[in-house]
């Protein structure tokens, strides 16, 4: 059972005028969802491309630090758009999403993958001298890249699964 505090919060959000304003317009939710999907597409592609490079699957002739500088800014910019559109969807239908384990799991996974990505961004920059020329990256970095890919997939599954949540 979701706890009463979260239900209360969801009910309160649902009573706000912004929630009503979005909910009243039939075109609003599909449109905001489309923005959300476009944004998460850029987040996913940019993040996974760097993960693939860390795993030695892509662009191994490119310095890792150059790949990180090229793609990580796109992760953060698109993540801002994904967060704003996601918040609007949450405000529009809080009772449907906020108390579900799918939504909460998605947010926990997002927090974890953001921590991994920030750590990657800092470490890749700090260790550019050794990592750019390394034929293979340390096992811990490759493991983190696999976890990052898995978390992005879990995040998308979690988002879609909210729509199927029973009860």
């Amino acid at each position, binding site marked *: 059972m979701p706890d009463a505090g979260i239900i209360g919060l969801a009910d309160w959000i649902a009573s706000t005028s912004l929630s009503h304003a979005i909910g009243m317009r039939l075109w609003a*939710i*599909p*449109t905001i*969802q*489309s923005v959300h*999907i*476009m944004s*998460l*597409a*850029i*987040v*996913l*592609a*940019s993040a*996974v*491309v760097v993960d*693939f490079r860390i795993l030695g699957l*892509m*662009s191994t002739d*490119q310095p890792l630090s150059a790949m990180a500088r*090229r*793609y990580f800014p*796109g992760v953060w910019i698109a993540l801002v758009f994904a967060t704003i559109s996601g918040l609007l969807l949450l405000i529009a239908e809080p009772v449907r999403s906020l108390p579900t384990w799918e939504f909460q799991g998605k947010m926990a996974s997002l927090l974890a993958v953001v921590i991994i990505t920030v750590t990657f961004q800092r470490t890749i920059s700090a260790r550019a001298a050794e990592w750019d020329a390394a034929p293979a990256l340390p096992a811990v970095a490759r493991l983190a890249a696999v976890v990052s890919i898995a978390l*992005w*997939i879990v995040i*998308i*599954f979690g*988002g*879609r*699964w909210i*729509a*199927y949540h029973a009860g």
Partner: protein
Amino acid sequence: MTLTEFLQAIEHTAFATAVREGAILFPFAESTHVVALAFVVGTVILVDLRLLGLASRNLPVTKLTNDLLPWTWGAFAIAAITGLTLFSSTAERYFDNSYLRLKFLFMFLAGVNMLVFHFITQKNVKEWDTDPVPPIGARVAGGLSIVFWACVIIFGRWVGFTL
């Protein structure tokens, strides 16, 4: 066999029935579809932004496309398989859905745009491969691509609300 009979035959296969009646298969196929299409559209946009001269400006265009696009096609195959899986579950209704038809129209336009770029615009790519801002033809291709794929996503999302 008429088209309607063909669509009904698809729906009546054991596979389509399992997708339609099972609790997990449909959401699983749909979520996988979203992951795959997000990767397709995301990587395509990375290439489009390069063609527009807005990102990866210090990287040759062909280097970026050679590195990214094989993965894009792999993800496209997964999106197509999962998309057909969803379609099979209620083939007749999907086929009649105007939004799905519009989605395919824009996917077709994105494909034509890609072919024109590949076989015509890119012919003299050696002359501008390393230019931070490619010539107008390439920029137009990049811009159209983003618009067409955005329409694919918008109309695809509407399908779920109108079936």
